[in-house]
């Protein structure tokens, strides 16, 4: 195939996605007004698909911390962590993250994707074995594949499927790495971590949990699903992102294993990239303090999540298995989902469209992510807009 011919397939995908009027992958928010509102094509739009779970992107304390950092430390570090890019603030955030997860070691990466790539490619080498949840995020798949380790998938959130594979591995089960997510970002379902921890202990394996969508959302202190299920101390590696509830950009890994400090020396996605700018580190640090000191943010978030979930359900929409800040409506065929998503956008509600193969099964979904910053009126407006488009189904 000629070098550029391969893009013909991408052109066909673009054409299909644009068939309803707007390409869901190319929406531009012309002006951002608040964590939950923006202007799109001249329309005032409720943002219901931004993963801004706690609404901290416009928090005055976070903005103040970022502004102070930019004035005092400049706009960027102009270097990698291993060279000139480690400022005191990076190290302080790493200590704060470790404390937050009650683990001795913490490490900051420049993006959530880099955190997963950087952790997995350092931990796993050819000859190692990884058991990966079939619905895991692309960054987890990519990290496992780039490592060269043997990858076996188990059925999504299926403990018996995981156990069967551990049994089959025999001696190799000891030291293998189980990789899962806390909260899954399309259907809003949580991993059965209690059972997974039991298995990892039984077989002598290790467990990595990605809390990208659950940080700040689950658990008494907002640490995530592992905390909520009472097994945080048994997780070997907690990875996640700063780009959702923390409202910035970046990623992290926390661990009880001292070897995390050595990952710094061998992780290429950590070594060969510039470190996060001081303003990002400062706003993330402040957002972490907000998560700790303002549990009311989580209370509001869950109130909104419950209302949206129940509102959709009472209208007869098929929603995910659990109430969570991720509320996905199953619409079946993409021929239904695409006009539905376009209809929502044209009526001033921005959501996420998930169609196969990007969805976790053969169905298409409209995915909403709820925010603590959504007002009760905005939540009702989202529900009403969905109701007004039911005739498209």
């Amino acid at each position, binding site marked *: 195939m000629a070098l550029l011919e391969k893009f013909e397939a991408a052109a066909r995908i673009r054409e299909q996605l644009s068939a309803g009027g707007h390409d869901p992958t190319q929406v531009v928010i012309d002006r951002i007004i608040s964590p939950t509102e923006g202007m799109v094509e001249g329309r005032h739009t409720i943002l219901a698909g931004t993963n801004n779970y706690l609404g901290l992107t416009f928090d005055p304390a976070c903005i103040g911390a970022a502004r102070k950092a930019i004035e005092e430390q400049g706009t960027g570090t102009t270097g990698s962590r291993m060279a000139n890019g480690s400022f005191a603030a990076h190290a302080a955030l790493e200590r704060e993250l470790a404390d937050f997860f009650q683990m001795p070691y913490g490490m900051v990466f420049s993006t959530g994707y880099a955190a997963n790539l950087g952790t997995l490619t350092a931990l796993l080498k050819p000859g190692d074995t990884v058991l990966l949840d079939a619905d895991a995020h692309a960054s987890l798949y990519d990290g496992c*594949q780039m490592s060269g380790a*043997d990858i*076996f998938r188990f059925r999504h959130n299926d403990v018996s499927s995981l156990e069967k594979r551990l049994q089959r591995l025999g001696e190799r089960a000891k030291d293998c790495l189980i990789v899962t997510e806390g909260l899954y970002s399309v259907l809003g379902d949580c991993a059965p971590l209690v059972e997974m921890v039991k298995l990892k202990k039984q077989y002598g394996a290790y467990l990595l949990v990605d809390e990208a969508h659950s940080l700040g959302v689950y658990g008494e202190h907002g640490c995530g699903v592992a905390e909520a299920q009472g097994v945080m101390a048994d997780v070997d590696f907690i990875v996640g992102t700063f780009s959702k509830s923390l409202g910035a950009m970046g990623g992290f890994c926390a661990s009880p294993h001292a070897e995390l400090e050595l990952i710094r020396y061998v992780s290429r996605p950590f070594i060969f990239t510039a470190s996060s700018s001081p303003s990002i580190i400062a706003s993330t640090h402040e957002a972490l303090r907000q998560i700790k000191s303002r549990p009311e943010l989580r209370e509001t978030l869950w109130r909104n999540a419950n209302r949206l979930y129940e509102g959709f359900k009472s209208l007869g929409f098929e929603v995910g298995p659990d109430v969570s800040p991720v509320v996905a409506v199953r619409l079946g065929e993409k021929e239904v989902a695409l006009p539905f998503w376009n209809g929502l956008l044209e009526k001033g509600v921005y959501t996420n469209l998930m169609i196969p193969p990007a969805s976790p099964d053969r169905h298409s979904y409209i995915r909403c992510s709820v925010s603590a910053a959504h007002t009760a009126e905005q939540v009702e407006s989202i529900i009403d807009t969905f109701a007004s488009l039911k005739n498209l189904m």
Partner: protein
Amino acid sequence: MNTSFDDIEQKIGKLLASYLESSGHPELEAHGEITGATNLVSDFTMDSFQVMEFLMELEESFDIMIDMNSLANAHTVGDLAKVVSELLDE
């Protein structure tokens, strides 16, 4: 293991036909018999999700575990039969 390569290929063909029928692939009828040369993606426009889902069914049906790395060059039913056959021989 007594299962011959032909038996494995035939069984994969049957599993594929059954999977395609359940997941609504109208081109199955026009394609006719599934053989070792049948290509999962170009003959049936299976997307990446469907290929992975089908592989999970193969794993359960043959009671094996397929390393994702071993699938890089497996495009046809015959390629898959080779991967399965090697795993059954281990």
